[in-house]
């Protein structure tokens, strides 16, 4: 009864080491049992399961956010709009929806570096970044980035000069945050499409510079 989605691995972990993990087997069985019972009860349409995974794996993702950033870099009017009403500006590009009904864009500058977290769960701007990577949801990231953001960013390879203030944005309510990274030097002649290629997911979370 269990339908496979793309990239199926029969419910086993496919970490780098391909180890046999009894914990993950337990989880796979648990999920399979739940799926079978809620499908049998008519609470869930199995096709909807496939389509929602497909939507997040294929349609949304950090490319959306990158397009927004690249446009902001090349279109001053759009950038003003984005920083003043992120939700509307982003929605105008066709990106909206669950876990991104209200998006605030925050700009990195020479004076301030911004970084986003959700200490209480794993809030993340799905319409522009897709689903969160596992490290973003880890206890280490969630606990430490509000207390020692500079030490955390250093682990990501990002050393923030002491003259630059760090601002951490904890997504505790309904607003989701998108960081507008600093535009890299020497990119003056690039098109928005070329620029979008340079924008990384971590740059838009604030855990990387570009």
């Amino acid at each position, binding site marked *: 009864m269990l339908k496979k989605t793309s990239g199926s691995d029969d419910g086993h972990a496919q970490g780098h080491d391909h180890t046999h993990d009894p*914990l993950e087997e337990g*989880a796979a069985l648990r999920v399979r049992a739940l799926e079978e019972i809620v499908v049998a009860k008519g609470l869930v349409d199995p096709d*909807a399961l496939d389509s929602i995974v497909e939507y997040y794996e294929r349609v949304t993702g950090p490319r959306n956010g990158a397009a927004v950033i690249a446009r902001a870099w090349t279109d001053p009017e759009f950038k003003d709009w984005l920083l003043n009403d992120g939700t509307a500006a982003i929605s105008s590009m066709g990106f909206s929806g669950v876990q991104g009904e209200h998006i605030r864009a925050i700009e990195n500058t020479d004076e301030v570096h911004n970084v986003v977290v959700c200490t209480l769960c794993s809030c993340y701007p799905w319409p522009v970044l897709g689903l969160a990577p596992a490290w973003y949801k880890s206890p280490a990231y969630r606990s430490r980035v509000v207390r020692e953001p500079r030490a955390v960013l250093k682990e990501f390879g990002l050393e923030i000069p002491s003259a630059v203030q760090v601002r951490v944005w904890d997504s*505790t309510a309904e607003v989701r945050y998108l960081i507008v990274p600093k535009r890299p030097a020497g990119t003056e002649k690039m098109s928005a499409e070329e620029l979008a290629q340079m924008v990384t997911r971590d740059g838009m979370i604030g855990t990387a510079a570009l």
Partner: protein
Amino acid sequence: MDAIHDMGGKQGFGKIPLEDDYIFRADWQRRAFALVEALAWATPYNTDQHRHAVERVTPEEYLRLDYFENWIIASETLLKEAGLVDRSELETGLKRFDIDRKKHKPVGSKEIVEATRAGAALRFPDDTRPARFAVGQSVRVSKAQTAQHTRVPGYVRGKVGEIVSDEGVFQFADAVAAGKGPAPQHCYNVAFSAKTLWGEDAEAEDRISVDLWESYLEPV
């Protein structure tokens, strides 16, 4: 709820697991995510209630189990509490009783993507109630503690910060999770200095911004 999920500022969790740079690494995680999303449309519980159910996972499991397994445990809890499944069904995957299918309609394949793209109304732009606090004002976060769902992280409780922005009138997560409806109120972005929060441990003159509903705040 003062549970394990409230991790801001807690110590001992070690290095950031940079190597865990995946969204799904097993198919069961994809199915778990999809199940939680799809169930939201056919069941009487909402996102805030699902968060609260995750918070009720025992701390030992919360830390030991995979993120998506905790999501599934939360869904099981809510389905049991709603009387839609029982423990034996969850253990075996075999149906023991039927539910009222007229009340609980599954979301379709096309419909779920459309609804996901549309999102939900969480803000009340036409609500003109006055804001209690103004940008630039100092506020103290309530010390109130509760066993219910709340979105005040423990690390700002009782601390003084400054209103950075009024985000507008939003549904109030505490009320929504308690099944009391939206109870709309202003929600503010409040900034705290690192020194206020961490004292001598603060790394620099940095700033932590937290979104807080009006009910959580007191004038200083």
